[in-house]
């Protein structure tokens, strides 16, 4: 598969693939007419606030709700004991574990849900929630996974019958014997121990619900911050025992998601139960603190990687051992067969025969989560580890990191490439992307400047990451979430006037689906994108789908859209033959019309065909021009690219500043280049965030130290670097339009580039690692420890 130029095939008026079409959804957002969950107000709506545990680990002796109940305006106070009566005190997680909805026996993390107050007013609900009195007996808080797995550590999950330790799971991938053999042949073993710190997606809109259960009909309408409304409906049916046809989940506009809105949270369940019992709608919207301390954290992997290399610069094999801090309930939202997600993509962009990965997960007294924060499941951690290891290996061998990469890259003619951990990479051209990024940054000049700068007492570093992602899960045989195969769907209805509506099982959180998916229809059917309305996020009105996360919308729902468009085009051809009184075999397609081969004047437009489908269909054909397609991808897609960061590090303070950030991405065929660029710029910022400031820490008693935006720092416009983007285009050979997905590439690929750059600036001092986030004091300490200072 070669890199090719892709120019639009359609006119701007049609607006098919490759057009930077302006966004449809912006029309409402720029007027403040978005409709987010908290904007919804229903008649008789009550408000819910949650009383949460101040302690990380304690036995509950008693819960006294009387003072809360006495507050004027309080309608009900819900406890776990009350929920237990409905068999709702516990719920399943997306990883097959259980999670307390409201704690009954113990609290297992600070911020855990204990009781919920339902009141006529949001302020009153919060007042009363504070008045719930809980008596506790303190237990040892387990605040790191190392301690959790020591023999004398107190058992966190004593609610689970077979649980005898805090070990949550064990998992391995690859071939141990082959990897041991590879290591035996190595000249050098390069190792790196590092922690990918705990982070939080922190979309600016927190999570929330307006639950409206009609006690007369049993109809439950749940307006929810949901990235996966269909899967959530099924979970609700299973958890709450509600009939699935009576549950309608509406996920309205979402103010960002980034994986935070994939799990089902206790607040959703309690609000729904409360609405069911009280018979009035109940709204619950998290505060920022609730969002940060109790919902979907990400990362928190302690990783040890070893790379076996030869003196002449060839990689022979990789070993990785990891320890995951999973919090109190194992709730990773990931395919069920893969306990560490798709971490085994860790072999990266390089060709070597052997790899072996082992992972243990431990329960700790922290919030559950393990969500795929703007990445495919655990791919960010994997990409970080291999790209850090590769740079360190190059240093140890005395080689230039770019040349070391180049001599180990999977070559363009090796695709489809079978990785040692079982992936089949669809397509790639890593060398071309890397050289393009090196040209853009002026690689040789920066290397030369580095030497000169040191002589002048300045510190300049250049770091690179040549990442490969795996997204678009996935093939149903291997990939499922709680048993639901990871297909996705598209329903296309072409109306008599030639306008269309496209209904999808996925759900945008800002990615611009209303704009881009219409462009796929425009490309395939020649109906102007402006004539195609895209509908998502309403389970009563869209076909079943697994939702939007792990960059799967374009790879899976995008493919479904292309396929259903093509199916309708086949039917349109039959109608065209009828209208043109020609044989189907004699018809040819050109964007938006069929014509008789050799007689272009004898043509009929898609609009005329659509009209005929309802007014004059062929006698042997059913009327209408509608259809639905469920797409089970034959493989995942493998976006890639090279990011290069140049930093200036202040030798006095350890402060570092990004001078240049070059990003060459290859996401296959682009639907809308403007939106692709926007996605990459956003992802590069999240990568910068994780490498420089974003992390959630805890003190020794389990207090969360990142519980608001004053302590949990996310980048502002002031410190965010300016990015320079480049591209190569290597289509996915198995995707109907050759697209691969791009929403997360930059988050996955860029952290290693930032860290590699700072380490590079300090490498001559013997510095080989700086942990994220690279605060100035960490960088300063690294300099002191390695310079004898």
């Amino acid at each position, binding site marked *: 598969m070669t890199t090719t130029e892709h120019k639009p095939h359609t006119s701007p008026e049609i607006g098919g693939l490759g057009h930077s079409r302006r966004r449809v959804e912006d029309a409402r957002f720029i007027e403040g007419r*978005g*409709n987010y969950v*908290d904007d919804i*107000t229903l008649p008789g709506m009550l408000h819910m606030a949650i009383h949460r545990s101040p302690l990380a680990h304690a036995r509950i002796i008693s819960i006294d709700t009387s003072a809360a109940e006495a507050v004027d305006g309080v309608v009900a106070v819900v406890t776990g004991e009350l929920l237990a009566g409905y068999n709702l005190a516990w719920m399943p997680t997306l990883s097959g574990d259980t999670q307390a909805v409201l704690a009954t026996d113990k609290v297992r993390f600070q911020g855990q849900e204990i009781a919920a107050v339902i009141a006529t007013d949001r302020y009153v609900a919060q007042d009363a929630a504070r008045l719930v009195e809980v008596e506790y007996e303190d237990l040892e808080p387990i605040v790191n996974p190392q301690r959790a797995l020591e023999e004398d550590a107190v058992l966190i999950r004593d609610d689970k019958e077979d649980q005898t330790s805090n070990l949550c799971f064990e998992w391995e991938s690859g071939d141990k014997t082959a990897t041991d053999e590879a290591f035996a042949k190595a000249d050098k073993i390069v190792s790196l121990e590092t922690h990918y710190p705990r982070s939080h997606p922190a979309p*600016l809109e927190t999570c929330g619900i307006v639950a409206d259960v009609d006690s007369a009909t049993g109809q439950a309408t749940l307006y929810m911050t949901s990235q996966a409304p269909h899967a959530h409906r099924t979970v609700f049916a299973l958890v709450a025992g509600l009939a699935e046809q009576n549950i309608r989940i509406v996920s309205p506009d979402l*103010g*960002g998601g980034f994986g935070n809105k994939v799990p089902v949270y206790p607040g959703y369940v309690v609000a729904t139960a409360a609405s069911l019992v009280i018979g009035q709608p109940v709204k619950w919207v998290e505060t920022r603190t609730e969002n940060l301390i109790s919902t979907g954290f990400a990362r928190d992997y302690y990783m040890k990687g070893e790379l076996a290399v030869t003196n002449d610069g060839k990689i022979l094999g990789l070993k990785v051992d990891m320890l995951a801090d999973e919090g109190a309930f194992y709730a990773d939202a990931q395919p069920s067969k893969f306990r560490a997600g798709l971490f085994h993509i860790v072999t990266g962009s390089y060709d070597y025969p052997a790899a072996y990965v082992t992972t243990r997960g431990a329960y700790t007294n922290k919030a559950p989560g393990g969500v795929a924060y703007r990445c495919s499941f655990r791919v960010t951690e994997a990409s970080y580890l291999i790209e850090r290891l590769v740079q360190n290996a190059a240093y140890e061998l005395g080689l230039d990191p770019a040349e070391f990469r180049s001599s180990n890259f999977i070559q363009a003619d090796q695709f489809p490439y079978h990785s040692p951990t079982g992936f089949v990479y669809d397509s790639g051209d890593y060398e071309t992307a890397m050289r393009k990024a090196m040209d853009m940054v002026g690689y040789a000049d920066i290397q030369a400047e580095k030497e000169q700068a040191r002589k002048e007492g300045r510190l300049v570093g250049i770091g690179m990451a040549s990442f490969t992602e795996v997204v678009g899960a996935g093939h149903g045989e291997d990939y499922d979430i709680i048993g639901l195969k990871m297909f996705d769907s598209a329903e296309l209805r072409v109306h008599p006037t030639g306008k269309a509506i496209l209904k999808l099982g996925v759900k945008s959180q800002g990615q611009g689906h209303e704009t881009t998916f219409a462009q796929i229809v425009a490309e395939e059917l020649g109906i102007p994108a402006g004539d195609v309305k895209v509908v998502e996020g309403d389970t009563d009105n869209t076909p079943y789908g697994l939702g939007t996360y792990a960059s799967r919308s374009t790879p899976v729902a995008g493919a479904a859209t292309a396929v259903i468009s093509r199916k309708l085009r086949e039917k349109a051809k039959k109608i065209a033959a009828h209208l043109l009184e020609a044989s189907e075999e004699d018809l040819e397609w050109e964007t938006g019309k069929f014509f008789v081969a050799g007689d272009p004047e004898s043509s009929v437009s898609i609009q005329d065909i659509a009209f005929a489908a309802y007014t004059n269909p062929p006698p042997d054909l059913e009327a209408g021009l509608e259809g639905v397609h469920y797409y089970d991808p034959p493989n995942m897609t493998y976006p890639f690219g090279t990011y290069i960061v140049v930093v200036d590090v202040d030798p006095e303070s350890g402060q570092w500043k990004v001078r240049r950030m070059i990003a060459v991405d290859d996401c296959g065929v682009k639907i809308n280049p403007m939106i692709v660029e926007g996605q990459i*710029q956003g992802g590069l910022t999240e990568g910068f965030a994780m490498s420089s400031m974003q992390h959630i820490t805890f003190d020794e008693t389990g207090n969360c130290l990142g519980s608001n935006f*004053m302590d949990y720092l996310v980048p502002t*416009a002031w410190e965010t670097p300016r990015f320079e983007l480049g591209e190569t285009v290597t289509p996915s050979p198995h995707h109907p339009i050759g697209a691969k997905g791009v929403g997360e590439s930059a988050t996955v690929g860029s952290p290693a580039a930032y860290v590699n750059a700072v380490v590079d600036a300090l490498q001559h001092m013997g510095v080989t690692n700086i942990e994220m986030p690279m605060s100035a004091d960490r960088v300063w300490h690294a300099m002191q420890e390695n310079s004898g200072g």
Partner: protein
Amino acid sequence: MNITVTVNGTAHTADVEPRLLLVDFIRTNLGLTGTHIGCDTTSCGVCTVLIDGTPVKTCTMFAVQANGRSVTTVEGLKQNGELSAIQQAFREHHGLQCGFCTPAMMLVGTALIEENPDPTEDDIRWAISGNLCRCTGYMNIVKSIEAAAETTREGASS
């Protein structure tokens, strides 16, 4: 307490609790939901409105403090049925993705351009540094405000 607040040119009188936050007054009492809530601690800025032309975060300001003042929210940006320069620029330059920070970003941009018709990139980045965005990486927000400033200058000189 009885307060009168002028919002987008219309005076609203209401009897409110002293502790009612201005953002809740705007969203709940007036039903203007384009002003959002994101952090409760004056950090993220999605609740920003203009008070007498100056950007203010309304999640830590009481409604009673706005008594007698003039508030502009995103719903007040359109003039005579026409999108303002900044609204058009955000759409043209892909200055938004999820849309949650957008109303505040546009209001801060509007105030900046009013004060400084020809802002540099640093001026813009500093002006919006109290407003977080998790989607865009800010580059296109900066570009949008630059473009709106240019349009506004051209409009003033023509």
